[in-house]
């Protein structure tokens, strides 16, 4: 049973495709990562350490900016990601 999907090889997050309990290990690109929080279906987990101000990368593109440092294995969502979309003037 698959646990996470890595959409693009450039991404620094994966998306959970099942409920993942805290302290579960997942395998991403031959790397073993410990999930530090319980993650719901459809939610994202950092697969690298992401520094405050860095881009969250999914689909090979920036989907937003880290509001704070996000450790590998942590949940990535509205609480620690800032929307960087600016509509056209």
């Amino acid at each position, binding site marked *: 049973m698959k646990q996470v*999907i890595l959409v693009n090889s450039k991404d620094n997050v994966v998306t*959970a495709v099942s409920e993942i309990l805290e302290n579960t290990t997942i395998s991403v690109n031959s790397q073993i990562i410990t999930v530090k929080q319980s993650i719901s279906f459809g939610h994202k987990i950092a697969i690298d350490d992401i520094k405050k101000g860095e881009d969250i990368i999914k689909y090979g593109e920036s989907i937003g900016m880290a509001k704070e440092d996000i450790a590998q294995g942590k949940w990535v969502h509205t609480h620690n990601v800032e*929307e960087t*979309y600016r509509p056209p003037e």
Partner: protein
Amino acid sequence: MVTSFFGFERPNGEIGVRNYVAVLPTVGCANEVVLEITRHVSGTVGLTHRQGCLKLPPDLEQVSETIIGLGKNPNIATVLLVSLGCESVFPDKIADEIAKSGKPVDLVEIQKIGGSTNACAKGIEIASEMVLEASQIRRKEYDASELMLSTKCGASDATSGLASNLAVGAVADKLIEDGGTFILGEVCDIMGSEDVLASRAVTPEVGNGIIAMVKDLIVRAQAVGMDAVGGQLTEGNKRGGLTTVKEKALGAIAKGGSTPVKGTIGYAEKPPGKGLYVMPTPGRGYENLTGVAAAGSQLMLFTTGLGAPEGHPIMPVIKLTGNINTWENLRSHMDFNVSGIIEGTETVEQAGERLYEEMLNVASGKLTKAEILKYNEGMEILTYGPTI
């Protein structure tokens, strides 16, 4: 891998995947006659809508162009137009323009012929002859490059941006590689990723055209005091895992694949060449599907998470889902299952290859669930301005 299908050749060389006799009203007041004709004659399809009058000239022009485009779609063998007589579009002009494609066109006018009953009788007589002729056209084998596919997502969920949209993107890439055409739309879902899409445009001008579509949507929402961007990411989206508008939009434009954007086209406008084009369609199905059908799209790939059932009168719509529950519970409406991508039993590439094959099968005559259940009778033409 097979890259051909069996279709119907039209006089102008375009290839259809269906062989309809279309009964097409030039105004909503003719709908009752259209429906009566289609009830009586097999092989006909009615394209009822509620436009043709009491809109401002730019909208009337768009309505007229869309009706012409629908009539020219290669899935249609012959066209019977039904007019009231006093509408604000010009039935003779519409008939002439459709006839330029080489297909037979006829016209019945309710006020001229003495009312709806006479119009029905005459229409049934004409449509019957049309169907007899059309039924003698045979499917022949053609290259996939003759296909113009379109796509839409509806009732999306977390599986859409992870599975079904990506599978469609794989098909878009393959079809374009094989010489075909693909239309991406839904400006509300491009909004958030228009810079990414624009960066893939063949010229800066095309890129600016994409950005302009998004700006136009934002301005029109502002005109009624609404914030299009603020409303785009719902609480339901966030509960489901979507964090930003950018993330949602990137998941949506994945349906268009990865090839360069060749150009932007207007609503209902036929692409000027092969490749990937972007049309400013809304997220709403009635107008969205009608716009691409009028541009000449023969077939649509429609991703759904929760299960949207609707199709279109003249354009088969393949419903695919990455949600196993939707596939099981709504099998009567779903055509194709890509939940294997979620389960890890299939890659996006593998699902895309299977979907390409399914697409060619449907092009060759395999019916979609929306066609089987007749869940394909609603359509509407997009207008922008006020109703007078």
